[in-house]
């Protein structure tokens, strides 16, 4: 490596306190995958970074490559953070997205597709707070990881009707005779087909109902099964 300085755009996934006034920021960059970097002095009131390196920020960065941790040298906002952090629902939805992406992304493994998906989803979150914004992103995320759930026919016998259950371990829906996993209502199945079948906007406009709740529960279970760990943001706000 000749030049340790590099430029990239990134979304801040999360931050950890480091020492007295520094922070470690976990970034999903467009070209360098997930990168951990030190932002020196960000916790001081007079820091040149200010709010630019808070979670959910979309920033253009000048970075200095280190051995373990890189160093953030300069940061400039791409999208304004205000609509995301000024509303509790927007903020928790946004945090639910970055938590999932943080678990999914690999260190220094370029994932421009994941980056673009996250940026798009965060822009959606900034504008609307429907009940399916986060679950829809989870389904899309799973599909992009190559574990798109089978929604058209029973994963075991291939029957097309009636599909009454959804099993995360089997990776799709099941008919009445093969049923296992959680039960699935026909309405929820229709919404899931909407999300994964190119009618996303229609699904995002749906008002909160037992159906959207069911779709959200299936999405959380499926993603947790794939990541093999609990999603904390989801667990925290389910209880309220």
């Amino acid at each position: 490596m000749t030049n340790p300085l590099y430029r990239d755009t990134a979304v801040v996934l999360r931050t950890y306190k480091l020492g007295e006034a520094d922070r470690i920021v976990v970034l999903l960059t467009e070209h360098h995958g997930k990168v951990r970097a030190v932002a020196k002095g960000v916790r001081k009131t007079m820091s040149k970074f200010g709010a630019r390196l808070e979670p959910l920020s979309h920033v253009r960065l000048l970075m200095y490559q280190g051995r373990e941790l890189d160093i953030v040298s300069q940061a400039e906002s791409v999208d304004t953070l205000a609509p995301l952090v000024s509303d509790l629902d927007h903020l928790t939805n946004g945090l639910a997205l970055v938590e999932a992406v943080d678990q999914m992304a690999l260190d220094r493994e370029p994932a421009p597709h994941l980056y673009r998906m996250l940026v798009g989803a965060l822009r959606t979150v900034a504008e609307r707070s429907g009940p399916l914004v986060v679950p829809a992103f989870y389904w899309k995320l799973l599909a992009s990881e190559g574990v798109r759930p089978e929604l058209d026919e029973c994963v075991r016998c291939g029957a097309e009707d009636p599909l009454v259950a959804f099993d995360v371990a089997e990776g799709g829906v099941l008919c009445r005779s093969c049923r296992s996993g959680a039960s699935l209502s026909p309405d929820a199945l229709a919404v899931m087909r909407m999300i994964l079948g190119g009618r996303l906007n229609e699904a995002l406009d749906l008002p909160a109902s037992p159906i959207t709740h069911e779709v959200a529960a299936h999405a959380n279970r499926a993603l947790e099964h794939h990541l093999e760990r609990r999603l904390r943001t989801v667990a925290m706000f389910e209880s309220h």
Partner: protein
Amino acid sequence: MAAYTTPVQVLIDELGRLPGIGPKSAQRIAFHLLKVPADDVARLAHALTEAKAKVRFCARCWNIADDELCPICADERRDPTTVCVVEEARDIVAIERTGEFRGRYHVLLGAMSPLEGIGPEQLKVKELFARIEPEGITEVILCTNPNTEGEVTAMYLARMLQPFGVRITRIASGLPVGGDLEYADELTLGRALEGRRDLSA
């Protein structure tokens, strides 16, 4: 690689467990302590055990105290109707230094962090709600840190405090005195503009 005799090594290990103190700093402090008179060391040891034994949380506001109530809660002259909610007892010291606030405090002992799974149950949130009516509180100032965790906490508290019918305020965000506008981030500058003041009056 135990190069030191046991008591010294134990001392270095214990010092090394303190925040911000690495093995080298621990070594330097240990050797400094071995060099100074025994009285000085005894005074330090006494200060440590004394602080640990006497200090506890204020029964009302969860500030650190050496009695049932902290000095601020015990002070009759302070306005009991205004409560300033902060994350840590350290923040009280910072606010007290301004000399601008004459009410009481409430320490949450942390902030909500969805990413780390810290929810309202782990904080002194219920204790805050329980204070509103008995103390006749009319205004709650949300003084959590202006970062993501602090904002989540403030917005959550604002939502939960709505039914109590008290005035809920959030400290303003703005530019630090002595800073350059050019280096201000958009969010801070935007909020500073939003909260601008009339000078014409």
